């Protein structure tokens, strides 16, 4: 029975159900007409593909969640800028992941070497489209994490360049290592490094830590926002502008995570549907526990139920469970989510204390909770969990459950490699940007807000102090109506005099 194939994850596993069934069916029908067989295989493939597509759509929708959380966490004067960055990374990411990113992550041509793939450039001659879109959505998520860490001061042009490089190179290499059929860390290669190889079911490390570490490098090179750190060492809070959008974004992210984690079964047939259900439950419990811990911790340690920390806590729980969502049991998901939330809670303070300015907590939420998630696999995975998720050596499992330290060691190696690669390449990338076109807007522009100079816009012209509001620049005498309309001019509304 092609058991191993069944469990090959990215990107082959999408075929798993079909292959599994094929094996069963073909042996049974060997001497018969293959017709009912063919329809069944077609349907198995259809169902697996549809799962991947629908989950990809959910993961894509996380872009809206990232956009809303990040926008809510910055000041009104930088809102359009951060939204533009969120839009453009998904968009540019689509193009660059089509051209280059996929090839490096999963390209099968030209003798892959365990370090990076090659082949299927521009998807020429390629037809596993469902896998592409699923993987693209992950790449876009990794890219967009960074926007928050560099918010309110990074030039748009710098972000444009960064986003190409991360989706074309930095992230795809990590994917190749961890998820391709011959990545050196991959649990799906012929001879895994040791234990089960690096187990990161849906990408706590591969996606979130990459984003978080890249954000950290960028934030270090970029410097803090003006006013964040006082001369006498004080650390100032700079509140965002819209808690409603932030909460909406959190819920959208959570919703999208149901594509992110359960979708990472990459199929439904061959028993994967039950795995997906368990993954969904673990994801839910980790998020819930994360929020609960954040509420309690903030009440105890700051005397109030902190809304921003609660949002961060949910996300910390979600990021934390992402690696182990298939291999741990529900009680462990509660523990992992709770700890993930605490990691974020204290991570936010730590980052402040080392004088790095991360306006939305991206480094803590994605970077640190991501590392926690990867290690948690080595601590909490059950033997049955390793087995049901199809990893090759279920005798290595969570240290705390008596599965030995091997898997934990493997996880540590894996995440160290990912952090190292990302830190080095992101640092080089941002340094190169800094010393060529420049990373940062000028101080006056920063004070005025990036929206005005970079985009010529007020995000909320009717509300904010900077918008034209009820005041208009239209000269009254120059205002006329469109001919067909025939109203007499009474008052000019709020438009400005056109310059174009």
């Amino acid at each position, binding site marked *: 029975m092609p058991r191993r194939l069944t469990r090959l994850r990215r990107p082959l596993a999408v075929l798993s159900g079909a292959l599994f069934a094929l094996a069963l069916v073909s042996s049974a029908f060997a001497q018969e007409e293959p017709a009912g067989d063919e329809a069944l295989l077609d349907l198995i493939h259809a169902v697996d593909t549809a799962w991947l597509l629908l989950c990809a759509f959910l993961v894509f929708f996380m872009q809206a969640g990232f956009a809303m959380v990040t926008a809510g966490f910055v000041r009104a004067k930088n809102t359009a800028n951060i939204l533009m960055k969120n839009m453009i990374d998904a968009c540019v990411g689509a193009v660059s992941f089509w051209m280059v990113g996929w090839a490096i992550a999963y390209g099968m041509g030209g003798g892959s070497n365990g370090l990076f793939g090659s082949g299927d450039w521009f998807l020429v001659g390629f037809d596993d489209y469902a896998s592409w879109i699923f993987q693209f959505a992950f790449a876009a998520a990794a890219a967009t994490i960074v926007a928050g860490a560099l918010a309110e001061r990074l030039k748009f042009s710098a972000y444009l360049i960064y986003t190409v490089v991360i989706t074309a190179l930095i992230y795809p290499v990590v994917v190749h290592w961890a998820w391709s059929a011959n990545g050196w860390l991959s649990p799906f290669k012929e001879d895994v490094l040791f234990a089960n190889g690096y187990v990161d079911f849906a990408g706590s490390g591969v996606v979130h830590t990459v984003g978080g570490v890249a954000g950290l490098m960028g934030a270090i090179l970029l410097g803090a926002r003006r006013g964040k750190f006082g001369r006498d060492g004080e*650390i*100032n*809070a*700079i*509140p*965002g502008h819209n808690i409603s959008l932030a909460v909406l974004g959190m819920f959208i992210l959570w919703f999208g995570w149901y594509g992110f984690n359960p979708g990472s079964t990459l199929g439904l047939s061959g028993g994967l549907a039950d795995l997906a259900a368990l993954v969904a439950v673990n994801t839910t419990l980790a998020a819930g526990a994360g929020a609960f811990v954040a509420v309690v911790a*903030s009440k105890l*340690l*700051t005397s*109030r139920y*902190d809304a*921003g*920390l609660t949002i*961060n806590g949910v996300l910390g729980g979600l990021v934390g469970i992402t690696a182990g969502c298939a291999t741990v049991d529900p009680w462990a998901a509660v523990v992992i989510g709770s700890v993930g939330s605490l990691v974020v*809670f204290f991570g*936010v*303070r730590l980052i*402040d204390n080392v004088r790095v300015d991360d306006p939305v*907590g991206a480094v803590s939420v994605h970077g640190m909770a991501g590392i926690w998630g990867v290690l948690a696999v080595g601590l909490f995975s059950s033997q049955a969990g390793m087995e049901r998720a199809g990893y090759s050596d279920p005798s290595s499992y969570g240290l705390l459950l008596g599965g030995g330290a091997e898997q934990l060691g493997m996880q540590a190696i894996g995440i160290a490699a990912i952090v190292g690669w990302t830190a080095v390449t992101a640092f080089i990338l941002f340094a190169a940007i800094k010393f060529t076109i420049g990373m940062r807007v000028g101080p006056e522009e920063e004070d005025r807000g990036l929206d005005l100079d970079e985009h010529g816009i007020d995000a909320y012209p009717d509300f904010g102090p900077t918008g034209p509001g009820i005041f208009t620049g239209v000269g009254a005498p120059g205002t006329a109506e469109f001919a067909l309309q025939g109203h007499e001019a009474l008052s000019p509304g709020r438009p400005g005099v056109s310059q174009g």
Partner: protein
Amino acid sequence: MKRIEAIIRPARLAYVKDALEELGYPGITVAEVKGHGKQKGITEQWRGRQYKVDYLSKVWLLIVVDDGDAEKVIEAILDNAATGEIGDGKIFVSEVQDVIRVRTRERGVAAI
């Protein structure tokens, strides 16, 4: 004529306005302003870190009245705006040379 400019607590405006209206002074202009004074600011927090908001929300109230009515109006404001706690605000009284009603171009006391 007197220009009476009061900085009061937002929550007291309704009481002040009602009192003025009852006294026969319906015409007022108000705006949201922020005040800083002896009253201590609010401590808020953002993702766990506390910060002080030094400016408190206040209402600025402008009412122009005839000289003889000024004391009555000031009394009405004082009666309805005071809570006794720090931060009740101030009234500033100054002289207005002319008042013009835009609609009718009436001037002086007739225009109030």
